[in-house]
């Protein structure tokens, strides 16, 4: 029996011995999307980035494209540094609205999903309304919310919660609906309570879908935050977009776009890592 023990362990968990290099340090330094990045791949990625950014710079200069149409990458970066003192308070406002709105929306969405999937009858009744919330752009509500709540952060936070919550909810609900009766029976046979079955079986089982919901929900939240800031009020990165474009200060405008892109990618990377940590069993 001893012999039979080791030989069936699949090899896929071992580190690939990539061409030259142990691959360990690399996955730490790169963004880590993709597990075993070789040095060659990293080099290629950097090279492509340099070519695209440098190429844009050269082409824009070569064809004398006016700054107010499309500023060069170097101008954008410079604007980012010179304007940073004016930009960062707005960045904080946007992040605050996003985080608060997302936290509220995601918690409600998660709890609703967990509760509703336990009652198929309730689920049937509620689902159409959730779909309505998912498909309706919550931005449309912002003018109305501003009318009621003024030009502060509140209407935007509510809009973000309304945009991200339903996304978290429908994805989590999909996860919670994946019941594995054998695993529940297993837990029950060891005397598990309903609550323990929920925390030890149902939630881990649903975790991959919950994480997808959180990722999509937070991206939707970001879109809604910026959109809501563009609609009204005097703060936030969305407001800066309208402000700079009205003044035709294109390098600053694109600097804001760059920040938004970085936020979006950070959100993606964050949930990618969370997914790797908490849902990697399902591949």
């Amino acid at each position, binding site marked *: 029996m001893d012999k039979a*023990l080791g030989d069936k*362990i699949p090899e896929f968990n071992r580190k690939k011995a990539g061409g030259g290099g142990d691959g360990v340090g690399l996955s730490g330094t790169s963004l880590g999307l993709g597990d075993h990045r070789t040095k060659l791949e990293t080099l290629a990625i950097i090279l492509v980035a340099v070519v695209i950014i440098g190429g844009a710079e050269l082409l824009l200069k070569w064809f004398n494209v006016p700054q107010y149409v499309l500023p060069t990458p170097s101008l954008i970066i410079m604007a980012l540094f010179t304007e940073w003192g004016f930009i960062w308070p707005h960045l904080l406002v946007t992040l605050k609205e996003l985080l608060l709105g997302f936290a509220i929306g995601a918690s409600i969405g998660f709890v609703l999903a967990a509760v509703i999937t336990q009652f198929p009858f309730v689920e049937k009744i509620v689902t159409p309304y959730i779909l309505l919330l998912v498909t309706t752009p919550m931005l449309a509500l912002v003018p109305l919310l501003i009318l009621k709540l003024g030009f502060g952060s509140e209407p935007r936070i509510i809009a973000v919660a309304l945009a991200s919550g339903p996304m978290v909810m429908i994805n989590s609900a999909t996860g919670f609906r994946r019941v594995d009766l054998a695993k529940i029976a*297993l837990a*029950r*046979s060891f005397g*598990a309570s309903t609550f323990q079955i929920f925390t030890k079986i149902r939630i*881990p089982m649903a975790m991959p879908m919950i994480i997808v919901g959180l990722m999509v929900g937070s991206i939707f939240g970001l879109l809604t935050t910026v959109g809501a800031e563009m609609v009204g009020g005097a703060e936030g990165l969305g407001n800066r977009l309208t402000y700079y474009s009205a003044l035709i200060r294109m390098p600053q405008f694109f600097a804001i776009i760059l920040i938004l892109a970085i936020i979006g990618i950070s959100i993606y990377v964050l949930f990618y890592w969370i997914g790797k940590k*908490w849902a990697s*069993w399902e591949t």
Partner: protein
Amino acid sequence: MDATPMRNVAGASDKKAPKMVIAGATKYYQTRTGSVHALDNVSLDVRDGEFLCILGPSGCGKSTLLWSMGGLHGLTDGEIRLGAEKIIKPHPEIAMIFQDANLLPWRNLAANIALPFELKRKPVDQQRIDMLLKRVNLWGFESKFPRELSGGMQQRASIVRSLSVNPSLLLMDEPFGALDAFTRDEMNLLIQEIWMETGKTIVFITHSISEAIFLADRVVVMSARPGRIASVFDIDIPRPRPVDIQTRPDFIERVLHIKASIDHGRSPSDGLAIT
């Protein structure tokens, strides 16, 4: 040495009180298309410390009976008692082992084996777990995830998980049905050894006549629609039984004997594996 069928006198004449008593167990499943009569007046004593195999064609209610014994679902009529206690919910003295190992894929081996302790809110008995892991040759694999283990290793892990909380009655539902023939022989040997070492009572469901004879003190044959006990056979082959016993003429004779008794009682269409 002859396998003697004893019609419906399961658990007769034993001085010790039976481990578990099943009295008139009857169960109907209510479904959208009507009710399914899964168990019909099943009465059976599980003797203390015995290895009891339940044999029967697919759909005859073996799992239904075992789930009732484990307190996982109720009966329509009749009752099941563990000692003096009526089984109406899962009991700490009873552990179940399911067909596929049923490990949680998001937990590594150590965390999977710790699950029963977590659920019972008890400190993990690491000493016992280590002893068991060594016993089934899984020592050193604690950090592996289920998908990194072979089917046999997974099933051994699930055996450790069940034994870790030291139950006195093990209910096993076709535990090795999904394994290849070689691994299955290994597992049968292992479970026989564990049974001999621990003196636990084991109820073991299988499709395979020879697996049942190899393992059991008694083989209970069930018939289908509705599920009831057709006959009970005593298997008095001395232990430990080596794997190659299954090729011996007297063993094969027992297999054919049970097979004939099964074929006698029903249409030849639904087959039972001899292997």
